[in-house]
């Protein structure tokens, strides 16, 4: 086997290794193919924006609640102040849940696209 020196990132990384061929519609630039792709991109973007906005709204609600919520400053659970619990522990499951929901929905969008393309 010949020895090849790898000195840096490959610049002409055209095809990802092990990548299976594109569906015909993509490569041939047909009108229907283009429409399918546009709608896929739009639905993925909409999904990402919805999840991002939803998460940011939850974050903002948390923040406002911690500052203005009645009695928050005095509330303690097992001796730990409520704001510490919410910020130090409580937000992380929300992040994880958003990510999990997004992954499922994004995979569903892609499956729908694949069905459309392969039905033709």
């Amino acid at each position, binding site marked *: 086997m010949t020895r090849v020196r*790898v*000195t840096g990132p490959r*610049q002409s990384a055209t095809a990802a290794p*092990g990548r299976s061929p594109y569906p015909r519609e993509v490569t041939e630039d047909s009108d229907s193919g283009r429409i399918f*792709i546009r709608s896929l991109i739009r639905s993925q973007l909409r999904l990402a924006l919805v999840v991002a906005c939803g998460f940011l709204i939850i974050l903002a609600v948390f923040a406002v609640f911690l500052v203005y919520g009645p009695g928050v400053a005095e509330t303690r659970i097992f001796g730990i102040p409520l704001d510490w619990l919410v910020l130090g522990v409580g937000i*992380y499951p929300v*992040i994880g849940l958003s990510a999990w929901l997004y992954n499922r929905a*994004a995979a569903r969008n892609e499956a729908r696209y694949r069905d459309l393309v392969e039905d033709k």
Partner: protein
Amino acid sequence: MNPAVGLFAFLAVSLATAVIGFYGLRISRTTGDFYVASRTVPPWWNASAIGGEYLSAASFLGVAGLILLSGTDALWFPVGYTAGYLMLLLFVAAPLRRSGAYTIPDFTEARLDSKLVRRVTSLMVVAVGWLYIVPQLHGAALAIRITTGLPSWVGSTAVVVVVCLTVAAGGMRSITFVQAFQYWLKLTALAVPVVFVLLVLASNGTQPQAPLPVNPTGQGAAGAYQHISLLVALLFGTLGLPHVLVRFYTNPDGQSARRTTLIVLGLLSVFYLFPTLSGALGRMFAPELAQSGQADALVLLLPGKLVGGLAGDLLSALVVAGAFAAFLSTTCGLVVSLSGVISQDLFGGSVRGFRLAAVLAAVVPLGFALMTDTLALAGSVGLVFAFTASTICPLLLLGIWWRGLTDAGAIAGMLTGAFLCGGAMVAGTLMGPGNAPVWLAQPAAWSVPAAFAATVTVSMMTKNRVPASVNRVMSRLHVPERPVATER
């Protein structure tokens, strides 16, 4: 603390990194191994590696130190560091993996079909990388000073020497495994001492010296602007970090890039519980560290202070080892991705060029680190995130989701962001910490929207420069790979 403990831990971790780097050379033999071996890496390993590279001095030392100083205000830092990965997942992970580009300059060149935009992006990536290495070296300086009593420069110089040796010798090929190991080392090094301290405190029935909610230095609470600006920086800065993005290439396809990111989120969430706990313990049982300006060393000093004796020394050794793992892994990751960029664009991509670039990538930030003073680590890393969010983030987000982006728009956006955010950073440094107005100390809230606005406006004005390949590239980014299992 016993100086021998710190020195021993540091030497052990440096040696381990160097040895794994040198011997990693022999594990992978062919180009194919080097590029593709990672495809056989399961998502768990991959996610651990991303975590290992991401958790830097700021996370390991800085977060706890900042929590000691400013309490709940500082809790937003780990939230932002973690939520940044959510944004990365939503907007960048799968498309970037599908783009087939290894680095951000590669991506921009492929997307915008322009050499000039590649050059400018490379400059930005190098700037971000250098800025990000500086706090790592500050962390190393602090750790060496606190644990061994040696002068500060020894710590930063030692880290640079170890990193240069490993990277320039051609090591770090088995980088995925090294970084994955580093994550678990860091988690153990932080978790075990904290749990031990908690047990000791509980069994001794020690009473806290100060209540948790009160800031030991009497520092006031941060305002809404600071929180918003910080979150903008952290949420949008994460998705432009060069050493993080290159890791995503080790996933076989877009779908698994998403799965990996989900695991990363879990790993980060677990990790950040411990700096938070350390910070809280520090506020209650060691508030005097905040007054003596040693807040960032809290994690290092806590076991020796609250446990003491031989057990305290052993735990301290573990924490110091974890801290150096943090400096070394993040710096190595940054230097590797920077030298890739520098050598391709400056030295034509030869082996000698790569080595030269590695030295350049590490020595320049060392100069900065030696000239500047240690600021609060989490804060200075926060500024780097602000810079990334103002320069690379608009380019990536718009490049992935908007067909209208042009090379002129991308360059205008990056320069605007770099000028505004960089200017604010310089002005803030010149005025000195504490004297700069809030909007200058935390520029992200206005510099990021300005960079986006510049990118979009100039792109709209130069519509004729939209590359002809845009449809092909966009479909590449977003069309799912065919799952191998269902191939007909």
